[in-house]
């Protein structure tokens, strides 16, 4: 049971930064914009949040600072890709590189003093429950926030008018423009939201998950989040499941190694990637479904005519 609890909670926690970043990117891509710079925005968020904690600000302020840093970085992308209509692939890649460089520069002065990590919640009765307590009710608040964001984004995208408009902009910006929606402004908001979420993911890494600052501490998680969105065929629930699957396989392969499973560690290390790709490809075999959810104008620059 203890082992199961360790695997289960480890999975949920490992998936949390991916959920934040991938859900943010999902909203961006649904608006027809491809921002490849998640890694850079996460690093900015991680650096700023860590700085805020060492500077003595409270945890909520630090996390907010991380989120805002991600949003600020995404604004840079927005100006390049939306206002100046540069190639979105190039602008996104530039942001990824820029973010890792700038965060490393900011982080030079941080030293590496340990910080107090974000604590798990302690809900009066629930956290004390015998089995369910340690399993479900002792995570840090951001884990629950990630799940709340999943619910909110699913609801927003598919149950609100604003969500419908956002998706319309991603399908056909010309049509949206023709019927009077401010395409560029909507895309800006989506990009900023994506930056906010990537910043949150970064903040989660540096103040909750591994409470320290090291250069490039995201170690590729931004790219995994990006891939998750594609493999999840732009659907929120699959993003969530994909993140859990990836996190779960990561934990399981480590458990397998430590248990002395008779499989080389190199192969076990590849398992999370293999499993996630295989499962998500299997559930996306239906081409029609794929076409239904793929934002038709993804990564195509839009210039309002006239």
């Amino acid at each position: 049971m203890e082992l199961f609890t360790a695997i289960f909670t480890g999975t949920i926690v490992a998936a949390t930064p991916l959920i934040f970043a991938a859900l943010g990117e999902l909203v961006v891509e649904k608006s027809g914009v491809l921002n490849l710079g998640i890694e850079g925005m996460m690093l900015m968020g991680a650096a700023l949040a860590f700085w805020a904690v060492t500077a003595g600000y409270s945890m909520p302020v630090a996390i907010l600072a991380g989120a805002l840093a991600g949003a600020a970085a995404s604004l840079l992308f927005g100006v390049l890709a939306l206002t100046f209509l540069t190639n979105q692939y190039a602008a996104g890649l530039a942001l990824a590189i820029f973010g890792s460089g700038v965060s490393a520069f900011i982080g030079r002065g941080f030293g590496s003093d340990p910080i107090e990590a974000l604590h798990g919640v302690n809900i009066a009765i629930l956290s004390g429950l015998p089995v369910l307590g340690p399993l479900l009710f002792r995570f840090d608040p951001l884990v629950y926030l990630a799940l709340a964001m999943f619910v909110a984004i699913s609801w927003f995208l598919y149950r609100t008018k604003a969500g419908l408009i956002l998706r319309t902009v991603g399908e056909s910006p010309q049509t949206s423009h023709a019927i009077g929606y401010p395409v560029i402004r909507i895309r800006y908001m989506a990009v900023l939201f994506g930056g906010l979420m990537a910043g949150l993911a970064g903040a989660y890494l540096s103040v909750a998950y591994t409470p320290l600052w090291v250069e490039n501490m995201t170690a590729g998680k931004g790219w995994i989040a990006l891939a998750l969105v594609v493999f999840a065929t732009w659907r929120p629930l699959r993003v969530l499941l994909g993140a859990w699957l990836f996190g779960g396989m990561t934990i399981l392969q480590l458990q397998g190694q430590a248990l002395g499973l008779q499989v080389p560690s190199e192969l076990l290390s590849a398992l999370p990637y293999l499993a996630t790709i295989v499962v998500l490809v299997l559930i996306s075999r239906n081409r029609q479904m794929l076409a239904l959810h793929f934002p038709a104008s993804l990564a195509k620059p839009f210039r309002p005519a006239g």
Partner: protein
Amino acid sequence: MNELTRRGFLKYSGALGAALATGGLSTIARADDVLKIGVVYVSPIAEIGWTKQHSLGVEAIKSEFGDKAKLTVIDNIFMPQDAERVFRELASAGNQLIFGTSFSHGTPMQKVAPRFPKIAFEHCSGIVHLANLGTFEAKYYEGTFVAGAAGGYMSKSGKIGFIGGFPIPDIVGPANALLLGAQSVNPNATCNAIFLNSWFDPGKEKEAAKTLLSQGCDVICSMTDTATGVQVAGEGGAWSIGYASDMSKFSSGKQLTSFVLDWTSDYVGAAKAVAAGTWKPEVRWDGLAAGVVKMAPYNDGIPADVKAKLKQLEADIGSGKVHPYAGELKDQDGNVKVAAGSVLSDDGIRGMNWFVKGMIGKLS
């Protein structure tokens, strides 16, 4: 420390070209009595870790030589193709002694060194030697053996956890020595090993440490370049063993000890030899005796008599009385690899790609 600029390179390489044309490199190199040294780090200098320990060696040269040495340091060079360019530039800029600090600097240095036969190249953790390329390396396994003994004394479960980057001899060997050290005081000790298959991934390292804790390990040794393993162990109430630097401040007071790398003698020694004109490419492979490997202060939670035993063990390894890989050594399947009364050969140590009995994990 002066920054290299592109213009500076061009200037120096121009000067060098002219000098070569008029004959002899050593004449200009010695012209101004200031020793010019180039150092290439594999990562940025952090507060702790591999590159930090190298930067201490550089600092030692500075304090030893004062303004008699001019150091050019370039950090965060990992990829061999970048490294080759950097080494060539440093050589062209008239440095008389050039340090590479990572295994990945090996191939580039082997390419650049023959073109600059008058320049001394020193490669940390290198395996190839040339007429002007020497290597230096630490005997990590001496450190892990002592640390493992500390773990053996303090562990209640007899289960040690080890986290490494890749399953290569440089990591597998020390992991084996860690367990052998623990078994020297508790013959039933075992060691669960996890390889991240990445040199750097704090998130995965954290999960690995938690995994080891959940499987009952109560001493965690993480031979990676961050303090994450030590941190997670401390939070989980387990003992930890640091690597490269003293990581006690991350450990919630639970770091048993750390096997600290001190390259000072390698850096200062090479610089002095070059300055005196007596430098020769050497193969330096030192441990506790030479002080290249040092044990960080033992945790106050270790009883005084155990501390004394550990200090004695350090001395005995230093003097050669105790050898971490002394027979009889068996592999995981129980085959005798080193007979009783003999020790594993140096080549055997450098190429160790098998787990000793009691290691839990599978090497490909």
